[in-house]
């Protein structure tokens, strides 16, 4: 086949054809992959909530976004809170799970820009039975701080700033969890109002 000459109509037709073809193919691939991508995102969040609440299966009953930007996922096994603070290298996004008394059930670092090999260890460092174990602690009884600041959590070696930022995120998450409980006691009230009623029946 002979090569097409570079005349204006030739060039215009070829460029348009290629662009339209490319656009069409991309639109098709987009429509195919859109579903799986959205599903994956949902599944990731659901898995994260399950992991930090230490539960195999749970139901998310309600989710709300607070003024500070924290997001609460209220489930039948406890509450997961997504919160952001400034780490050493940028934003540090953590998902923390609390049971109904405010004890930490688990956590996951969702996004971070900490130094690899140093601050980036936060994902494992504070887990159960690791060096800086915070699982089971209750930030309401005593605010979590690193031992350098008089607290009882061991900071990541050579990464005090990341450790401080991480514990700040946990404390903030706890505050959001508590505030939301005070602000929206709708679920609590029902159980409270149900109690006197049963008492009355037993009295009689």
């Amino acid at each position, binding site marked *: 086949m002979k090569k097409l000459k570079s005349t204006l109509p030739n060039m215009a037709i070829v460029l348009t054809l290629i662009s339209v073809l490319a*656009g069409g193919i991309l*639109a098709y691939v987009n429509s195919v992959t859109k579903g799986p991508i959205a599903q994956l995102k949902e599944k990731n969040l659901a898995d994260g909530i399950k992991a930090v609440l230490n539960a195999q299966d749970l139901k998310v009953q309600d989710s709300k976004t607070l003024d500070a*930007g924290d997001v609460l996922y209220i489930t039948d096994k406890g509450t997961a809170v997504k919160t*952001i603070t*400034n780490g*050493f*290298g940028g934003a540090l996004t953590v998902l923390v799970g609390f049971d109904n008394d405010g004890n930490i059930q688990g956590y996951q670092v969702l996004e971070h820009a900490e130094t690899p090999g140093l601050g980036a260890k936060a994902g494992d460092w504070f887990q159960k039975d690791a060096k800086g174990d915070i699982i089971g602690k209750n930030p309401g009884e005593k605010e979590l701080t690193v031992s350098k600041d008089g607290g009882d959590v061991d900071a990541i070696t050579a990464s005090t*700033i990341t450790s401080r930022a991480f514990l700040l995120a946990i404390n903030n998450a706890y505050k959001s969890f508590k505030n939301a409980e005070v602000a929206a006691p709708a679920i609590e009230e029902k159980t409270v109002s149900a109690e006197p009623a049963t008492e009355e029946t037993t009295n009689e």
Partner: protein
Amino acid sequence: MAYILIFITAIFVNNIVLSQFLGICPFLGVSKKVETAAGMGAAVAFVLTIATIVTYLIQKYVLEAFQLEYLQTIAFILVIASLVQMVEIILKKVSPALYQALGVFLPLITTNCCILGVAILVANGTYASYNVEPSLLTGVVYAFSTALGFGLAMIVFAGIREQLSMVNIPKGMQGMAIALVTAGLLAMAFMGFSGVDGGLRQLFGI
């Protein structure tokens, strides 16, 4: 204050070449002399700022408006390529002096990945820290500071290479090998700035 923070962070802390690895090709390719390095830096600053504005507007008013986000890469690279051509033609007509200085570098800029990279970062709003709201203005400040950071890295690196060309270097290390090791040392020096943004943030109360 947020603009000063973006400015300093983009130039020193997250230097586009030495810590983000964008724009390495011109960084290694045209850094033998300080003069050419400065020319390349200026050309990048010019194109990067304009390209960021144009691609940001395209992202907001064309791609997002018609839900065509998946055409981002293809749209941006075509816009950047034609923009570079246009800048070249306009510069030739309007300011021959400036064209003389920047002209040779312009064709090289289309394949400079820091232009497309920064355009994508700004359009997706992933360049700013979470408490700085992404907008056109912060995007432009970020793009311009990034370009200054690129220019700074280029000029400093070219200065070192000019000195290096006068000394004896072991045979195997000659050429690109010693240039890369030098760049590594420079990157190490720039690592000294890490954490500065955190301090500034406290200072400014952001």
